[in-house]
């Protein structure tokens, strides 16, 4: 079984996790055009190489970020979202 290192729970079986999509900054919902919003919702880089993506430890509902190589399936590192979102900044899913 492949092991993923959860920043909160430590190394766990990958079947305990849910993939959450590529990491992109959410455009401001009030200012974004319809085109920008649809691109944020539907479109992906889907690139071959190292990408940053969302993962969730399903059992504890803990969301974090991972850098993973989409060709070799190597996970380079995992880290809490606090590393990229400044304290008080609007994170994903928060409604201003």
């Amino acid at each position: 079984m492949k092991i993923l290192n959860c920043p909160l729970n430590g190394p766990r079986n990958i079947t305990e996790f849910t993939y959450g999509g590529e990491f992109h900054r959410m455009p401001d919902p009030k200012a974004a055009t319809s085109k920008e919003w649809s691109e944020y919702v539907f479109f992906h880089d889907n690139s071959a190489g190292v990408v940053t993506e969302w993962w969730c430890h399903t059992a504890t509902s803990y969301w974090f970020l991972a850098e993973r190589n989409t060709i070799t399936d190597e996970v380079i590192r995992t880290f809490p979202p606090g590393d990229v979102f400044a304290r008080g900044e609007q994170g994903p899913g928060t409604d201003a």
Partner: protein
Amino acid sequence: MPIGLLKFGLRKRYPAVHQFTPQTELKKHYDVVIIGAGGHGCAIAYYLSKYHGVNNIAVLDKGYLGGGNTARNTAVIRSNYLTEEGVSFYRESVKLYQDLSNEFNYNIMMENRGQLTLAHNDSTIRSFRWRAEVNQHLGVRSELLDRKTISELVPNLNLSEDSRFPILAGLWHADGATARHDTVAWGYAKGACELGVEIHQLTEVHDIIVENGAVSAVVTNRGRVECGVAVQAVAGASSLIGAMAGIKLPIHSYPLQAMVTQPYKPILTPHVSSPQVHVYIHQTSRGEFVIGGGSDPYPLYNTRATLDQKEALCSAVLDLFPFLAQANVMRQWAGTTDMTPDYSPIMGESPVKNYYLDAGWGTWGFKATPISGKTMAELVATGNTPDLIKPFELERFYRFEQINEAGATAASH
């Protein structure tokens, strides 16, 4: 007899017939360059040359003819989808498949054995009733079956009420079929080559040149080729090729793992699938059981095998057919499925002029090969998107008009 055969083979009067044109130098210019020599790419070339008089065409492939996902799919043909747009599109494909062997003068080993999808809960039965109504309205044969009829149709199926997910009902699709997947690409390629189309294998596209918003050339490992029109038909690499033309697509690429057992005597007639336990199975005419399931849980450009996914497939298939417990798995493989948000393909115009998309084929590409080839050829030849594929254009995501077929997949939800 062996000597007679040898004499026949060596006689000049019966020369070997080459089905495909031998490799030639790439020309400097083609009217149409098709990237990807799989079923779809060859079908577009075939319909363009045969029905639209366009034959200055090059079909490029980084590997060999039909060696990508055309070789890796599980060869299921069906049209029992949920939306009017989806059902109408796949229905035309199933119709074209019926006559494909005659069209090619080449046996694609079409077998009309029907498809049975299983419901293990009430909400699936509701969606089955919905699909059956939509299908019948559009002239596709689908009907709801009770347990007794299922047991007559598939006597080996485990209908016990003690199983983990007891089977409550089924959706029977008499139009469901299977065919030899390779022959579909070969048949189209052969027909296209006879009309002057060039198929260039081992020719990898490295870049796509866009000038003034229109495609003008593709750069390959064998040099630069000017083109009037370019079409990408590269299931499994849609985003990567699209990015060369500066096009971002709503696709995530996931592996889908499948496997096949040793051959056994004929025992299972229709194709059986279960969206609840995420598995589908059919027995080929050679006797092997082909077993596939949902895509992997996260995206990857790699066709490696994982034990977790194989365990899940085995456990699911044993729920349905316990007698397979003693069967030996002979081969396993994976293909790359380009999953779109609404489980429908992306066909038609792109933001780049004269650059057309045949992408997002997820787990539904093989069954759509003839109709996507036919309609995409019409688009390339006339510049007008046929009504049948108009709803599937990329632009739909900007209008938030998805065509949701997620509930009509055979094994994933």
